């Protein structure tokens, strides 16, 4: 039996456990959550159009005449009754500074003109801000998807999913006191490691790559069919490919790191915390440091750049300076090289690994 066929036999044996164990349930949950959310968004938008578009809908040209400085009564007289209308009175606080004048009453009105939702904010009776957006805006949704993919899917979903899948492969067997079963098979430890890694990788890539594809489709398909068709004919397929590729490469990189930390350390949660913190603060570090991150290369593969979160404090925004994306081929080669090195270290650790369940 050749080492390659042994790798495949081990991978096949492990695949069933990774795909179908009860523990994998939450990994599927992580991977499919964005799909559910985007489908929910499409349904929600349709319901809102139906609910708001009838009697409560107003004319777009009237809404556009509402300008800053108008009073709430003027707006009501001009446009009519809003879909929602909320008034909040300011409560006095103990450490209020009398010099710092704050508006006493805030009023929020929301209108719908059949396509756009328009939010108006009044302070002490005067219109101060106006925010309009199309309910199902393809451009907007693609940006939101990019943000979701980079901030949730790559940084959290794939990170924790791979942590669960790959740590399980060796450290989990150690804790289950069943690793000796594999060590008593006529296979080299390196072959065993690669077989297990392959199983974890196939499972993670299928679950998260598939999840990325599904959520992408759930984001694209509910939009206007002409827009969608144009999108597929131009950049759609390429975008879908790179999202799936980034998800799969995320599994390649994080998978190797967590497999190795499960072998090298008794408590792999510590490197996991370190990596999580490192990836989170990475954006605030100098360019060179930013490039020492799996996330940086994965984000470089993403087809749509993500704007900074709108609610981030100004001080943090000043400090945050994302490094320029790295070229695609360097990103892919860099990730694969990193994975190769990490797997090599893991092989050395696997060769030295002893069965000592009592120490767990």
């Amino acid at each position, binding site marked *: *039996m050749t080492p390659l066929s042994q790798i495949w036999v081990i991978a096949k*044996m492990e695949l069933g456990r990774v795909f179908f164990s009860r523990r994998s349930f939450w990994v599927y949950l992580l991977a499919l959550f964005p799909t559910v959310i985007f489908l929910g968004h499409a349904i929600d938008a349709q319901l809102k159009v139906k609910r708001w578009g009838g009697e409560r809908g107003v004319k777009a040209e009237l809404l556009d005449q509402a300008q800053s400085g108008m009073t709430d009564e003027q707006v009501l007289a001009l446009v009519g009754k809003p879909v929602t209308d909320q008034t909040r009175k300011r409560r006095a606080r103990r450490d209020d500074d009398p010099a710092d004048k704050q508006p006493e009453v805030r009023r929020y009105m929301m209108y719908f003109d059949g396509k756009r939702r328009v939010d108006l904010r009044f302070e002490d009776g005067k219109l101060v801000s106006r925010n309009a957006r199309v309910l199902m805006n393809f451009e907007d949704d693609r940006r939101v998807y990019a943000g979701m993919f980079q901030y949730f899917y790559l940084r959290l979903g794939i990170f924790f999913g791979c942590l669960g899948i790959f740590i399980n492969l060796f450290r989990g067997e150690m804790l289950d006191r*069943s690793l000796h*079963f594999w060590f*008593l*098979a006529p296979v080299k430890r390196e*072959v065993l490691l690669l077989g297990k890694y392959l199983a974890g990788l196939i499972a993670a890539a299928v679950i998260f790559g598939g999840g990325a594809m599904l959520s992408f489709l759930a984001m694209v398909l509910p939009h206007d069919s002409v827009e969608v068709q144009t999108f597929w004919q131009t950049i759609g397929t390429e975008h879908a490919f790179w999202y799936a590729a980034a998800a799969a490469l995320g599994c390649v990189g994080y998978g190797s790191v967590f497999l190795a930390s499960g072998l090298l350390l008794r408590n792999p949660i510590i490197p996991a915390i370190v990596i999580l913190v490192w990836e989170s603060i990475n954006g605030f570090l100098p360019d060179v440091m930013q490039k020492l991150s799996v996330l940086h290369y994965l984000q470089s593969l993403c087809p749509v750049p993500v704007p900074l979160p709108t609610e981030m404090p100004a001080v943090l925004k000043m400090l945050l300076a994302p490094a320029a994306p790295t070229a695609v081929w360097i990103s892919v080669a860099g990730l694969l090289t990193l994975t190769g090195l990490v797997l090599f270290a893991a092989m050395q650790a696997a060769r030295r690994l*002893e069965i*000592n369940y009592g120490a767990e």
Partner: protein
Amino acid sequence: MSTPEIVFDNVSKFYGEVLGVNRVDLHIPPGITSLVGPNGSGKTTLMNLMTGLVHPNAGVIQVRGISPFAPEKLMKILGYATQYDAGPRGATGFDFINSGLLLHGFSTAEAEKRTWQAIERVGLTAAAKRKVAGYSKGMRQRIRLAQSIAHDPLVLILDEPLNGLDPLVRAETIALFREYAAGGRHVVLSSHVLQEVDVFSDQVILIANGMIVAEGQIKSVREEIHEHPSQYLLHCKEASRVASLLFAETHISEIRLAPEGQGLLVLTRNREAFATALERIALSGIDIDGVIPTDENVDALYEYLIGGGR
């Protein structure tokens, strides 16, 4: 050509500051070899060292010429029934054995055939499709045995294989060891009950506190112990007269009259000289009905070699 022996050459193993085994030199020939010692004496460590589950801090191990650092070669000729209870999570008895055989490179059909043969051999056919985690202690013991013999290895290593077995299965299992060893294969097993393994072992290795204290056949092992005088029970009618004659011998250290004057309990430091003296007494016309060595049994041996070392 590989050496058909299991060799430990000055092997030591420490778990941090705790001694596993210390400077072990062993040559284990084919046949049934039993490792005997109290709990924590290092039996399992020796077995784990042989199979590569743990690595020595010093020394070299060869199993029929193969290093335990080459599992891809060693495990083809070796089967190990560990004392670890757990199998792969959620595996049935059948899966447990079958998956191991697939890793050996057997085709699916051949692996299934061998799996059923091994399961039948240990009498677990009815429970084969049940989860190993739900097995009783004895059943787990048997499924591990089945897993270790399924690929028909040349070296069979069994960690306390008779624990938890009922008398019938125990007899069948011992028969299996004998049959296995008869073909020039190694059967190495461990036990902390010397009496249990003495009856079917070709040789016994006594281990205490991580060190080998004796190896060989029980009888020859006793002959090597000089610090404890040998004990004999003499059946004779003229016990007092025999006692007075034996007291004249310098190698006799103690003589006690057995109850009701039926004989003597004699302690001697020289077995050959004692035999010569007895011959002389018998030739002088005194009837000696029987001479029974009382400390060549395994209990006494165990007490001499290991009891003091506890």
